[in-house]
């Protein structure tokens, strides 16, 4: 097989953002998707509860309310122009998905069904609003399947199981990528006029995580190595309800359908922390509440977990106390069958992994590392930004979880990850195609595969004193203990120091597999290197930020400090392993930062 390929637009990653980008670039530009997984294996497929859009199918809603909720959810760190754009576009984007064939659940009058989700409110009453458009509890699965189906229909070109390991830049402009073909172990060079990174998140640096093994931050790590910055890395979301010990996600939709969080005393503890919307507060708020309850000794059996109770008797009791009604005004009373029909996959996870039937027993849960608010800095158009002044890297785009527009700021609202990848995936695709139409094909640098080849050779040529698996375990435990839901100066200092040491030890690993075909050990080791780089940047940015905002909670600086810290961080990592931080202002249009209560 030829190992040099030329396209107008390359899309790196075959999840929701990548497929959206490809579908919108392909009609006007020769486009290929390069993905380390078969696209259907992407982590978009694991998203459960829904995609937020103010369709107003079951009650009054407006995109402006969605925007305000997102700004507030972001703890005012989200850029308000980008948030307005996203929430407005979300409405048509959801209709577009339906037109593509997505099998949304339906209302009695045949429209797209919607349900409540954390932090989404009617701005006039402050009460939860039904905004999350869903397909049972497998909305992400349906989005991924539907987009892939459209790619088949539109004959999009795919390089499946090709892992991109380097970005080629010529005179500061994107010129292509280098990828390993997993089946053969060969390096391939892809030339292009424009490159879109859509490589997903990096939650695998934490011990308890909802993320797929493949979420190793490849895109941001590749760009860091090429001298580009990453933005707001100190903000990583811990979802409050992961399955105890395993971290598997239990969607917020369980609480949307009436599930209640209980501590060891049987108290609905969220009443203390979010008196208005209680169990449906933002994820950062709920995760912190669980941590504080644990610290107060209210965890179950002293084992650092809480119970999520979705048994119909519990749901109905609290729904009556809250005065919750159905859209037609009748009291909200559910049966076990109705609950199971709304969350069939969750019920399956509980039975498989816990031996628990969720309508008969409560589910043991703990916070789980879930979503990267930070990532590759981009403009609203999806263009990658090179510095704090907003200078664009010509021809380079990013979208989805690997990117930071920023619409999620310090804390993402549930359902907004799917909104983000649909809206910004589409626009990155359109804009990259536009760019490609007017740009020439840049020359390749000399020895385009040299840097990638050097990185892979190093993984095979170390002393062998260290084992990659052991370094990975130490990193994950350290990150969970010191760079988790709550952080302190001392813990973060320890984390930075230890991560620098782990990065040094990493140079002493040696991959034992000398083969070429499906050398998964080699690529997993390379991915671990990405995680170590991003973990260091995360810890360093968290150490610098002496305030608490959204998902970044400092025990020693418990208050938000808009005076000094209403700004995005940008981090560069130099070859010596030093992190350099700069900052840029948040775009504030019409929502003035104020105290955030739920």
């Amino acid at each position, binding site marked *: 097989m030829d190992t040099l390929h030329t396209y107008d637009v390359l899309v790196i990653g075959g999840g929701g953002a990548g497929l959206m980008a490809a579908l919108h670039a392909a009609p006007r530009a020769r486009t290929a998707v390069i993905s380390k*997984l*078969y696209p*259907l*294996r*992407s*982590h978009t*497929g*694991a998203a459960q509860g829904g995609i937020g859009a103010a*369709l107003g199918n079951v009650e009054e809603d407006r995109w402006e309310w969605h925007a305000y909720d997102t700004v507030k959810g972001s703890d005012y760190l989200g850029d308000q122009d980008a948030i307005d754009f996203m929430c407005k576009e979300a409405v048509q984007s959801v*209709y577009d998905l*339906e*037109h*593509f*064939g997505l*099998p*949304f*659940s*339906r*209302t*009695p*009058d*045949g*429209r*797209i069904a919607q349900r409540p989700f954390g932090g989404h409110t009617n701005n006039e009453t402050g009460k939860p609003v039904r905004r999350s458009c869903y*397909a*049972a509890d*497998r909305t992400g*699965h*349906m989005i991924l*399947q539907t987009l892939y*189906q*459209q790619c*088949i*229909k539109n004959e999009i070109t795919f390089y499946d199981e090709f892992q991109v390991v380097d970005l080629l830049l010529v005179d500061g402009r994107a010129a292509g990528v280098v990828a390993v073909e997993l*089946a053969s172990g060969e390096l391939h060079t892809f030339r292009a006029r424009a490159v879109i990174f859509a490589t997903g998140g990096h939650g695998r640096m934490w011990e308890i995580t909802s993320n*797929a*093994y*493949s979420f190793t931050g490849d895109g941001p790590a590749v760009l860091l190595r090429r001298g580009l910055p990453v933005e707001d890395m100190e903000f990583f979301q811990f979802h409050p309800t992961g399955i105890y010990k*395993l971290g*598997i996600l239990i969607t917020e939709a369980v609480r949307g359908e009436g599930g209640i969080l209980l501590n060891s005393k049987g108290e609905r503890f969220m009443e203390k922390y979010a008196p208005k919307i209680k169990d449906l507060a933002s994820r950062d708020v709920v995760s912190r509440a669980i941590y504080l309850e644990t610290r107060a000794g209210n965890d179950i059996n002293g084992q650092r977990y809480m119970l999520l109770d979705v048994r119909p008797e519990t749901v109905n009791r609290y729904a009556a106390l809250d005065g919750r009604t159905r859209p037609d005004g009748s009291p909200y009373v559910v049966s076990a069958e109705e609950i199971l029909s709304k969350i069939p*996959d969750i019920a*399956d*996870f509980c039975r*498989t*992994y816990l031996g628990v039937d969720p309508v008969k027993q409560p589910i043991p849960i703990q916070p789980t590392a879930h979503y990267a608010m930070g990532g590759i800095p981009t403009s609203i158009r999806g263009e990658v930004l090179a510095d704090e002044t907003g200078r664009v890297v010509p021809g380079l785009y990013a979208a989805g979880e690997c990117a930071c527009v920023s619409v999620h700021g310090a804390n993402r609202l549930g359902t907004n990850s799917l909104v983000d990848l649909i809206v910004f995936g589409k626009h990155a695709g359109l804009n990259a195609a536009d760019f490609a139409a007017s740009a020439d094909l840049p020359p390749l640098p000399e020895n385009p595969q040299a840097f990638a080849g050097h990185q892979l050779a190093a993984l095979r040529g170390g002393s062998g004193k260290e*084992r*990659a*698996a052991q370094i*990975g375990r130490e990193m994950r435990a350290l990150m969970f203990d010191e760079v988790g839901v709550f952080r302190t100066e001392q813990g973060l200092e320890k984390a930075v120091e230890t991560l620098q040491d782990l990065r040094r030890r990493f140079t002493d690993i040696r*991959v*034992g*597999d000398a*083969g*070429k*075909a*499906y*050398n*998964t*050990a080699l690529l*997993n080791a390379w991915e671990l290197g990405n995680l170590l780089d991003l973990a260091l940047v995360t810890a360093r940015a968290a150490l610098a930020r002496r305030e608490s905002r959204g998902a970044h909670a400092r025990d020693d600086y418990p208050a938000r400090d808009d005076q000094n810290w209403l700004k995005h961080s940008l981090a560069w990592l130099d070859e010596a392993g030093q992190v350099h931080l700069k900052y840029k202002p948040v775009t504030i249009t019409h929502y003035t930062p104020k105290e955030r209560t739920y």
Partner: protein
Amino acid sequence: MRLTLKIFRYDPNTSAGPHYDRFQVEADPNDRVLDLLEAVRGDQDDTLSFRRSCAHGVCGSDAMRINGLNALACKVLVKDLNSDTIQIEPLLGLRVEKDLIVDMEPFFAHYRSILPYLINDEPLPEDGKERLQSEAERERFDDTTKCILCAACTTSCPSFWADGQTIGPAAIVNAHRFIFDSRDRGRLKRLKILAGQAGVWRCRTAFNCTEACPRDIHITRAIAEVKQEILKHS
């Protein structure tokens, strides 16, 4: 508890033919088989190759044969197997590329052959909003929307083993998802494909597929419904 994993090995680039390797691992009854494979690759033999991603049964990467039965390695727990030796082999009927990794392309080619996308050239609603579909119409094809294309069903099908040309249960499941979607207009095209030589009539209702499905899709029933639909239109 201590377990023995007996794992199928094959590397086309070495002279050693297909064989089995044994590994001793320390396991908890609640461990997933995937956790054990990770432990082997991480700490004992990093030349072992297998696919995995989500690790909780939704991405479809890690379908394999575990003690002779097709399953996702991330959805089988040690305690479910009730044996102190676990035999792990690649899916049958697809060419082994390395160890537990098989060539998925023939499987995806069958999937693509049934036109797995909504076909409807009618104008969209004038208000730009969603096409209407009743809850009952949506429910009609709910079961087959769950498919994650892991190939556990197709590679458990005796007709597929006998002849890789057989389109196989996964492709029929995905055809069913569109044939019974009230918004779709491609029904006759798909029924024609499925009535062909490699289509639904190869099914001998062995039920292996239904038993293998990690998503509990009623595959044999879906195939029967497609057969009836073909008869109705023939």
